[in-house]
Each structure stands twice: as C-alpha cells, then as structure tokens.
C-alpha cells in the first residue's frame, strides 16, 4: 500500500487540472463566446453539445479532486481543517477547495440544469439561474487563485516564507 499516496497525488493533480481547466474554459472562453454566439444565433452548438459535456467532466472532476485530496491529508485531515500548526497553509487551500466544490454542486450545477433545459424552469427562473450560476462560477475563479497558492505553499512551504 506504499504506492497509494503517490497514486492519490497523481490522480489529485490530473482531476484538479481537469476541474480548474474547465472552470477557466467557462470563464475565460465560453461566457464571451456564448454572448457572441447568441447575437448571431449560433449558440445552440455550445448550449446543446459543448456545455453539458463540459459540465459533466467539470462536476465529477471536482469530486475526484476533493476525495483524493482528503485521502492525501489522511490522518492530518482534521489538523488541516482546524488550521493547526504545520497544516495552516494546506488547510487554507483545503477550505477554499471545499467551498469551491460546494459551489459547483449547489449553485453552478443546480442552476445550469435549469439554464440548459435539463429540468423544467420558467423564463423568470432561468434569468435568476443564469445570474446565480454566473456569479458562483466567477466566485470559484476568484477563489481558485488563493486555493492554488495555498496548495503549492502547503507542498513547498519554504519557498513562501518571506
């Protein structure tokens, strides 16, 4: 079982790249592309074929990232979340990642289902859902910046002690 932490770290990084990569795709590419595509009525390609697939990998990559991260913390899981000495950096990263995971499943995915027509919603509900999902996604983009800093700092503390 000695190989387990290495395997977990490898999967944690791959899933994390997929999660945050898709988050950046949504925020840096798709939001602006969808606005332009809606104006020339070519948005169906994005909303029908791209967004549902991207959201599928996005939300499950978030789960895999969190679970493997929790596995890596192992017996220090509580120490990290309590920000105990020696675990404050990685603990802060873990808190940010956890808030982001909750955002994905409770705000982004729940509202995206209404926007993409996967669950019934009135036009008014879709307008609200669009705004909530947008702000939750932007919040996660903002949180990803300190989250990645603290994840790196947790693994390489010496480089960040000024």
């Amino acid at each position, binding site marked *: 079982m000695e190989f387990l932490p290495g395997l977990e770290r490898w999967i944690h990084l791959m899933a994390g790249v997929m999660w945050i990569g898709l988050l950046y795709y949504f925020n840096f590419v798709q939001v602006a592309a969808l606005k332009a595509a809606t104006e020339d009525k070519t948005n169906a390609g994005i909303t029908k074929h791209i967004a549902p697939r991207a959201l599928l990998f996005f939300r499950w990559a978030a789960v895999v990232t969190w679970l493997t991260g929790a596995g890596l913390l192992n017996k220090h899981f509580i120490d990290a979340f309590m920000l105990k000495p020696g675990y404050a950096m990685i603990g802060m990263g873990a808190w940010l990642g956890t808030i982001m995971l909750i955002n994905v499943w409770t705000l982004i995915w729940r509202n995206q289902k209404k926007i993409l027509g996967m669950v019934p919603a009135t036009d008014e509900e879709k307008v609200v859902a669009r705004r909530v999902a947008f702000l939750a996604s932007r919040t996660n983009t*903002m949180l*990803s910046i300190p989250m990645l800093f*603290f994840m790196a700092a947790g693994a390489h503390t010496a480089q960040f002690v000024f």
Partner: protein
Amino acid sequence: MQNPLDSLWGTVISGFVLTLVLYLVVTKLIMGA
C-alpha cells in the same frame, strides 16, 4: 458600485488581493500566534 466579478479582470485582481489577505491571515494570525 459595479460588482468586480462581472468583469474577468475584476475577478482575477480580486483573486490576487484575496490571496494576499489570506496569506497575511495565515502567517500573522495563525502561524504567528
């Protein structure tokens, strides 16, 4: 006042500011305590 999250650059700058604030919280208040 406009929400900084409505703009991509506002979001990125907010992220860097938050990083600095949280870094100071961790190093000065938690690790320094």
